[in-house]
């Protein structure tokens, strides 16, 4: 009896502490809800009037910023799969949370345990890559499988009733986004955007040219660790409505689309965020109309937008960038005044090109 009482007290205390910490986020959520309710009334858009929709849309919009923000760095380092691996370990984290709640009645949201487990897995992947000197498919596949295996094992050990709630983590569910999990997502959003804003120079250098970054004095391993940790946070944040299985798509698809049309890195960041937001808004609206899971529809919209971006990119190359010379066909003498400087100084003697 005392044990049960203590557990109940502990549970309510831990939730109270969390809610106190999340206070400012709840205030933001209220403002957001007020804004959308007003829009719903004024514009007569019924779906914006529901509380769950208001939270779902906010979470979706945050995902639309943070997923491509991190995804841009991952994709250009050929690390697109790391999101998938971390999503599956986050699933293990959810299972740990559900397990602890069932066994010792811990009373924490499984998203918090997912954050912890995914962060540990992220560090583990990074350490493997540091030891083996490369991110390799095999170690990532092992981490991915281990995460999912651990998740399914822990879940099936428990009472059958629990498996019902697992679906929402696998496929995501817009309508089950609670105020607390939306508030947690806002915190994650702040951390992710803040960290990228702070370390954008270093992340860009490491992404583009790791060796040169190392030579220039950037502690590359630290930035790689930051990168995978931020990825873990994005994955857990986005999991609520995207689900474990589809979460990686938000890291990759908008970025792939942006790469087709953007010329500069800054442009690709902005375009990928714009494409992701478009997917989210379209996806949520369509899923509401047809009564389908938001995550799946968002990804389908994203892929459709990607296909359009590929077509636009091809047209741009064909009609817009015709002045772009083929690789290796530049005559340095045609570069204008500066080019002339460089041919004048060129040593005309024979060069052995034995490679």
């Amino acid at each position, binding site marked *: 009896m005392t044990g049960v009482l203590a557990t109940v007290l502990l549970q309510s205390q831990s939730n109270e502490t969390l809610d106190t910490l999340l206070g400012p986020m709840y205030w933001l959520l209220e403002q957001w809800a007020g804004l959308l309710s007003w829009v719903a009334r004024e514009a007569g858009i019924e779906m914006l009037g529901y509380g769950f929709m208001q939270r779902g849309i906010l979470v979706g919009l945050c995902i639309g910023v943070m997923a491509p923000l991190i995804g841009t760095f991952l994709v250009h380092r050929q690390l697109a799969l790391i999101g998938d691996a971390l999503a599956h370990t986050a699933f293990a984290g959810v299972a740990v949370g559900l397990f602890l709640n069932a066994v010792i009645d811990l009373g924490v949201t499984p998203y918090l345990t997912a954050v912890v487990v995914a962060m540990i897995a992220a560090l583990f992947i990074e350490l493997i890559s540091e030891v083996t000197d490369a991110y390799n498919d095999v170690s990532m596949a092992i981490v991915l499988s281990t995460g999912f295996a651990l998740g399914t094992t822990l879940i099936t050990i428990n009472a059958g009733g629990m498996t019902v709630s697992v679906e929402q983590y696998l496929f995501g569910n817009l309508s089950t986004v609670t105020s607390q999990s939306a508030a947690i997502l806002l915190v994650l959003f702040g951390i992710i955007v803040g960290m990228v804003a702070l370390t954008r120079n270093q992340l860009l250098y490491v992404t583009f040219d790791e060796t040169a970054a190392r030579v220039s004095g950037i502690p590359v391993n630290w930035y790689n660790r930051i990168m995978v940790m931020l990825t873990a946070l994005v994955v857990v944040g986005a999991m609520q409505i995207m689900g474990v299985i589809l979460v990686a798509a938000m890291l990759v698809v908008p970025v792939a689309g942006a790469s087709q049309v953007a010329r500069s890195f800054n442009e690709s960041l902005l375009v990928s965020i714009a494409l992701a937001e478009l997917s989210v808004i379209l996806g949520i609206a369509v899923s509401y109309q047809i009564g389908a899971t938001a995550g799946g529809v968002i990804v389908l919209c994203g892929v459709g937008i990607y296909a359009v971006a590929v077509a636009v990119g091809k047209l741009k190359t064909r009609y817009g960038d015709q002045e772009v010379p083929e690789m290796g066909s530049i005559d340095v003498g045609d570069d204008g005044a500066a080019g002339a400087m460089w041919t004048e100084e060129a040593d005309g003697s024979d060069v052995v090109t*034995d490679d």
Partner: protein
Amino acid sequence: MSSGSAATARETAGSPEQEAVIELRDVAFGYTATPVVEDVSLSIQNGEYVAVVGPNGSGKSTLMQLMLGLLEPGTGAARLFGEPAHSFDDGGRLGYVAQHASASKEMPITVREVVKMGRFPHVGFGRLSSRDWAIVDDALDTVGMSPFAARRITQLSGGQRQRAFIARALASEAELLVLDEPTVGVDVESVQAFYGLLESLNDRGITVLLIEHDLGAVTDNADRVVCLNREVYFDGPTAEFVESDALAHAFGTAANFLGDSE
């Protein structure tokens, strides 16, 4: 720039009035029990134009990494601007240009954004000031890439791309420029222009260290040659290297080396 200046510079190595840019003493390193380089001692002074040559697998790139502090010597000591190379943290003084193939990712990034990275060691977490941007544009101008500043780096030829990377080193106000086989895969005309640029930068006082297996490029351009095949076979003025038998010793026969391909 005369070949004699390199020799003079070497003679003054270790003298208190002139700090060596790179100083290796009895350096050995191996990834396994078998050393990749061993017993390497050399000193590169400010303003020199040095080429490290050697056949494939001779330890050139490993030596370069030891010099830049990317690897720590198994035995011996490597110093960069007077500090232990491994803990050297003033990255702005170093410029690094890799084989152009290593930067051929399909990343959407403009030439100016690449050159901008040269300022990162100076600005840290901050934004580039107007002065930083002026340095970036000046570097682009020096290498003749201003007309291509807004172009995606993947749309450039190999030679142009390498010039962009030199500009990045210039933007960081590098005193030492290290190039690892920079002209592999670059067309012949661009190669000549590329070495012309290196020479003009060296004339401006930048120390140039060229890791190269293209002997023609080395003998035409560098003032001093270090010939490596695990250990140093020759270290001296280029003119002496051409006449020495170091080549035959280091490579087995010269003919073998010239016929070698990457």
